[in-house]
């Protein structure tokens, strides 16, 4: 079967991704200002703002879902999927939180230099997602669970919460994410 080949139709290169860990690909160094000056083109966008999920709750209000100020209800979003036709459901439950940033950039860029000489050989266009230096996470929260029904309101609903993830604070995200196609389209 060649199903996987279909999914691998594009490549992702993280030019320099540093959170609290080491750079992912050390040979792909960040471009200096000289190299950046060779990048022709205006346009592109610099985005500032924030994204939130179920900040105050979602649109469903029943005996299971409700507003976030109601301790007897879940106010987060729920994502369920199943891998077998007659099997149970994996669940990302009670998803909520928000994050904010300044400096997420998006543009199309031609790479033909830099990257320790690899850029000259590369010589093509990429979609560049410039990561903001700092992303502030606020009360990001979700649970991994397993359930016997897709909906928590279905008859006989049972669910086992496996673990919960909570995240807050600042995360340093530097560098660019370069997206380009590889392989046979």
């Amino acid at each position, binding site marked *: *079967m*060649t*199903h996987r*080949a*279909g*999914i691998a*139709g594009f490549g992702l290169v993280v030019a320099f991704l540093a959170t609290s860990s080491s750079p992912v690909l050390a040979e792909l160094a960040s471009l200096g*200002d000289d190299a*950046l*000056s060779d990048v*022709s*083109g*205006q*346009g*592109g*966008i*610099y*985005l*500032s*703002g*924030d*994204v*939130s*999920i*179920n*900040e105050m*709750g*979602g*649109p*469903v209000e029943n005996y299971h879902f409700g507003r976030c100020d109601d301790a007897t209800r879940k106010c*987060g*979003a*729920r*994502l*369920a*999927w*199943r*891998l077998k*036709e007659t099997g149970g459901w994996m669940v990302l439950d009670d998803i909520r939180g*928000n994050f*904010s940033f*300044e*400096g997420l950039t*998006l*543009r*199309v860029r*031609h790479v033909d230099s830099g990257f320790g000489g690899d850029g000259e050989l590369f010589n093509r*266009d990429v*979609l560049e997602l*410039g990561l903001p*230096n700092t992303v502030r996470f*606020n009360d990001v929260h979700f649970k991994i669970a397993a359930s016997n029904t*897709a*909906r928590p*309101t279905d008859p006989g609903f049972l669910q086992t919460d496996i673990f919960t993830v909570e995240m807050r604070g600042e995360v340093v995200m530097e560098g660019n994410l370069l997206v*380009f*196609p*590889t392989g*046979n*389209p």
Partner: protein
Amino acid sequence: MMRQTIVAGLTTLLLPLPVSADLKRLDDNAMADIQGQSGITLEMDVGVSADRVSYYDDGQGVHLEGFRVGSSVTPDAPAHHEITIDVGQDASLNLDYLVEDRRIEFGDVRLAGAPDVSMGGLFLDQSLQGSLTMRSGGATGHGYTFDTAYTMTGGRLGYRTNGNEVFLDDITLTVEALGTTLDVVGNTLTLNSPSVVGSLDVGAIRYSGNSLNHGRSTDATTGALLPSYGGLSLDYDLSSRTDLTAGGRSGEGLRIDHETTIHSANFLYRDDTHALALRDMSGRYQISDLRLDVDHDWKGRPALALTLGTLEGDLHIGAIEMGANGKSIGQVNVSFLFQDQVFNGRTYTNAVYLQGGGHPDAGPQGLRMAAEWSLSLADLSYTEDGNRVIFSGLQSWGQGDITVNVTRDETRNGTRFYDGLRIGFDGVKAGYRINGLKVGDENAPLQGGTELLLALGFYPAYEFEMGGHITLAPGGATGEGLTVNSDIQLHSGKAAVIAAPYDEGSGEIPQKGLWLTEVEYDGHVRDMTLDVTDEGLVLGTGESWSTMDIGNVRVGDKNSGGSFGRLVLQKFEKGSTMTIVPGGAGDVCAGGVGSSASACAASGGIWQQRGDEGITIRLKQLLAPADGSGRKNAIAWETNRSSDASGNAVNGTGTQLVLNDIYTSDGGDFDGDGRDDNTFGIRTDLAVDVYQTKVVKKTDGADSLGVTGNRGDEKIMDSSVAQGYRYVANPTPEEILDRPLGFAVKAESRFKELSINRVDLVHPVGGTQTAIYGIKMQNFDIKANLTATPIP
């Protein structure tokens, strides 16, 4: 007083036009005979008919057939006219006139070279009362000067094809034009109107699909009032100049040069008791070298040809108001220049070739316009609460046939038609592109930002071949309004999702971007209503379905950029709505959480009061489950395709990832009909504003424009420095007021339940295997508050 009844008199038809070929200068002897009398009153019952009135240009003719002047009330009866003629002390000729219930019409316009088809008929009904004063003089001293004022009431202006008609009903028009001059300068007839002031009111725009009806507000069979698209009102104060010169683009014909200045104007579209208003308008336009010929189009078809040299102008709309309280979304300015230009290596011009026929299956009457256009440059700017965003460098080009028919709900000659005014597209190859956005003023750097409007289907550049139709029927969801039925097919499309500028200041360059190419689109809309309501402008779709087959998603160049593969998007919606509401995001906590300034600041956010103006677009998308006929919501991504002899990927030969049968629901069957309810859908509110934002320097040193600063410094606008901004480590409250403006979009999407029936992996030989047996997403409320500025 002398009374005279004249049965026919073409002269009177030209009233109230300020020009009349039969109104010759009176010589002094004649004047002497008339002065001192109280004038002449002519009472006339005018009835004129002619089988054909023809115009020939270089031996090629166009015929107005079935020409008639008479009563608009009683068929075959004449129309009553009263004209009082007087000569003033200054030797001016004064006419006071009254025209009652007159109809001027012709049943058909037919080109001599295409006798089997025709363009359809026009009719004008009117009652007139007014005056015309004419004296010698003009602008040169050797012409004429006119003063005219008149009021038209009970007017109708209609277009009829194959027994169906659309007409403006209950027209009231007032015009006062003082000091209009008519001169012959060299070989040019010059009409100069320094002041034209007036108003127009159209009570209703009506449609009839009953061939027994002709120029009546009510149906001849049922007696009911004919359905209406709504009404219009316009008032204006303008001046204009028109030059007419003999000679067409080739041989005989007519050359027209014209310019108009709109000193002030207001426009209203009325839907029942609600209005969409364009207020405080002003502007100008200039037409240069417009030629009228009877000629042939680029395919050699006989046509009445209108070919243009240039058209340029600008329009300012001070406020666009809608909703219950007439709230404004802001100001709009448009500047435009139509002229010949090369696009994609081909020179496009501006021309319309009018031909008979319309859609070939709709009947012998209809209008076919073989059109070519070249919008060389346009800027569209939007200002709200004093802040401005410019959609800069808009260009458009195209060529193809546009057909116009008035049709009724029927299948005729194998083609499905709908009630209303049908605008058809036949082999239209067209495109448009914008250079980018500029926020603030014309000198601002180009930036992106249209990416934030993708949810509305806005692409910054698009080329396509188009066929299909849009049919506009009268009546909205309630009462007046519009109902739209359409079937549109696009071929060989190239649409930009992200687009870099096509001109960065040094001439045209290939436009880089993220492109959807080799696009084949087939879209259908049924019973989409358009109404103006208390809330704003509401579009409600009965049913819509489409397939967008994107041959390649390319990055870089639209023709040669690397491809991510093929993407097929299928949509099927029932009962979706879109509402355009005046007012933007209002108060926003950017980068934080909180509904008050203090709570926002405490969370680390910036409290923004984005003002009263702006636009909010509310979408409710009800995704319907697959209905078994192939209509569904699905996304397929195909890669690893085989190539043909030309190296092009062959669709269907690769492997596919398919999100199959995506639909919304309310999360259960609450009304007990055996199916999950689907009334909530995906609700998205998009609020668009132009507002300040925080821009932080990402690296130490100089930015792309050479302005230095340290990482983390804020960009502060400062007109006293060379690039118009500087970087500040710790901005003061005063400096914070000078943060840069951005294109601000606040979006909120909510849905109760979104399901994907299955996720399939498809192999061209091995067939389909299901990877995921169902995905259910429940209770989502996602908010994104993003402001786009140029990359420093």
